[in-house]
């Protein structure tokens, strides 16, 4: 299995963006590119070439599902797992996100200490 190194995090809330970046970089040892909107994520995908994307669901402008659709149009994103992060924990929604092609869902609030482990577990499932 290729090791997971580059994660793109698309999130408009600066506090969450920061805490996730620190959690992923320091605890997980990943390289993180934070983008504060769906459009910024789509624009940065080519140059950053993420191996995995963490995507906030509810954002102004392009929301999570719309961003996912746009990302999927990019050749570089082929086969790249996208994980939704959302404060909504209802199972129906989670199932719906899965149907959209999400590799997993991480529920907010998350614990910065275990975020990397959660991400890694989903990564490993994808590559099992």
């Amino acid at each position, binding site marked *: 299995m290729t090791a997971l190194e580059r994660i793109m995090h698309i999130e408009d809330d600066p506090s969450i963006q*920061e*805490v996730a970046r620190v959690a992923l970089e320091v605890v997980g040892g990943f390289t993180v590119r934070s983008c504060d909107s769906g459009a910024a994520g789509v624009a940065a995908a080519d140059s950053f070439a993420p191996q995995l994307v963490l995507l906030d669901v509810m954002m102004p402008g392009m929301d999570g599902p719309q961003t996912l659709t746009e990302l999927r149009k990019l050749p570089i994103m082929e086969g790249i797992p996208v994980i939704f*992060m959302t404060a909504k924990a209802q199972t129906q929604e989670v199932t719906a996100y899965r149907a959209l092609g999400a590799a997993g869902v991480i529920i907010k609030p998350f614990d*910065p200490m275990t975020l990397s482990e959660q991400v890694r577990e989903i990564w490993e499932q994808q590559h099992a």
Partner: protein
Amino acid sequence: MPDTPQLQTQLDAIEARFRQRLDDELDTLDALSAQLQQNPDALPNLRDRLHKLAGSAGTFGYVELGVLARDLEEQAQQQLEATCLDPQALIALTKAGAQLRPLLQRSEQREAQPQQLDAGSPDDDRHRRIGLLIEDAGLARQMAQTLDSFGYQVIPFATPAAVQAAPSLDALIIDTSPPGNRLLEHPVFQQAPGQLPPLLIISSLDTFSSRLQAVRAGAVGFFTKPVDLPLLERRLERDFSSQQGGPFRVLIVDDDTELTARYQLVLSNAGIRVDTVSDANLLLDKMHKFIPEVVLMDLNMPEYSGPELAQVIRLDDDWLRVPIVYLSAETNAERQMSALLKAGDDFITKPISDSTLLTTVYARAQRARMVSDALARDSLTGLLKHADIKEQLELEAERAKRSQAPVSVAMIDIDHFKNVNDSYGHACGDNVIRALSNMLRQRLRKVDRLGRYGGEEFVAVLPGCSSKDATQLLESIREAFNALQFSSGGQQFHCSFSAGISACEADAWADEELLERADRALYRAKQSGRNRLCRDDGVPD
């Protein structure tokens, strides 16, 4: 590899910035909700902001604030979806801002922090808050003293109403004597489960009806007068330890991967750790790696039947305790029976509702953990026994390997313990052992695992701790233990311990080796004069 102090500093800084923004955010929410009555167009904006707050507040430790924000967000969403606005609901939402701010203040008073990051320092459970609602002044005083000596923070209350007004407690002890006292009928004790801390009830009557009344009030423990205080303390400790030990681990054995994915989601959303096996050949291997507390098993798989696999699991003595629950479309009671007779403990019939699944698994897991806890703990100290601390070490080493985090092991041995027994008697020796085990338990963190390895020998497993952090932590405990004064038959004396510490921080993940290295380091500590720590971090001295 996590550099914990650095991480803590960074998270603190982000938290401080979040806290600053939070003030402004609550002002905005206040203003938005206030305009709502004149201007319902503010609703979507309010909903979005509440959503954001719901996601972020909990991450930064403002748990209640996050929960209320989520609740308000849902109310706002319902209004947005409704064809016409409900004036009552709108009025409730106009108060959103005003409701949120007091929760922020409450959280700040408590400095609630969900993250336990300070690997090198003792954690919060030294100060578990125990409320006492005890009229009998003598009993209250005695109880407060005992609990205080075990390191609990004791808070006396005069009335049930005062209990409700108090910030969250970890447990509440209520004296319901004299008989006929209607204390438990107070509205405070009629709340839904989860609203109150765990209750321990003291009664002067040991009758079925007094026990039933206690159960109906949601009690987790029942004691009759005169109260055996050490027993009560053990009960408290047991209750806290069943909340510890991390999330429950559930293994799903099913060849239907889509269904499995769905169960997995339902359970993991409730904070349960789930692993799955679809190929029965990998079952035993997975069991040993994951050490599940509950196994969910499909009854009919193409090549094997559920009961066959359950029997295979049960052939191994290690897995006699683990509950096996069948998931099945089988509604024929006879066939269900015959499956249960072979092996297995329960049935859930498909189609399974999320709540049935969750309740069954939760109840089974909780019970299983309680039973294995009771079996696994040493009767003198309440710590894990030899085999179980080794199992915990395996689990932690596995976790460390996965997350690339360090883990340390300390082997601790009381110095010249035989002399204590010979000079002061075995009862006194037991007191020394109990004192050290209590001190270790209180000063180590919630995530650490502690076991009694042999007579006067203890093992502590410290996940996320480098050998340097572990040494620092153990050093402070060594000093405190050495300062403790014991007395026996009018004579006073001090004890000390030596400890060996090993750690793996990068590549050497063999857990057996961790123990051996800690043991070797302990030997060196003993050789070089006792009452000291030695470290074996794989680097030659």
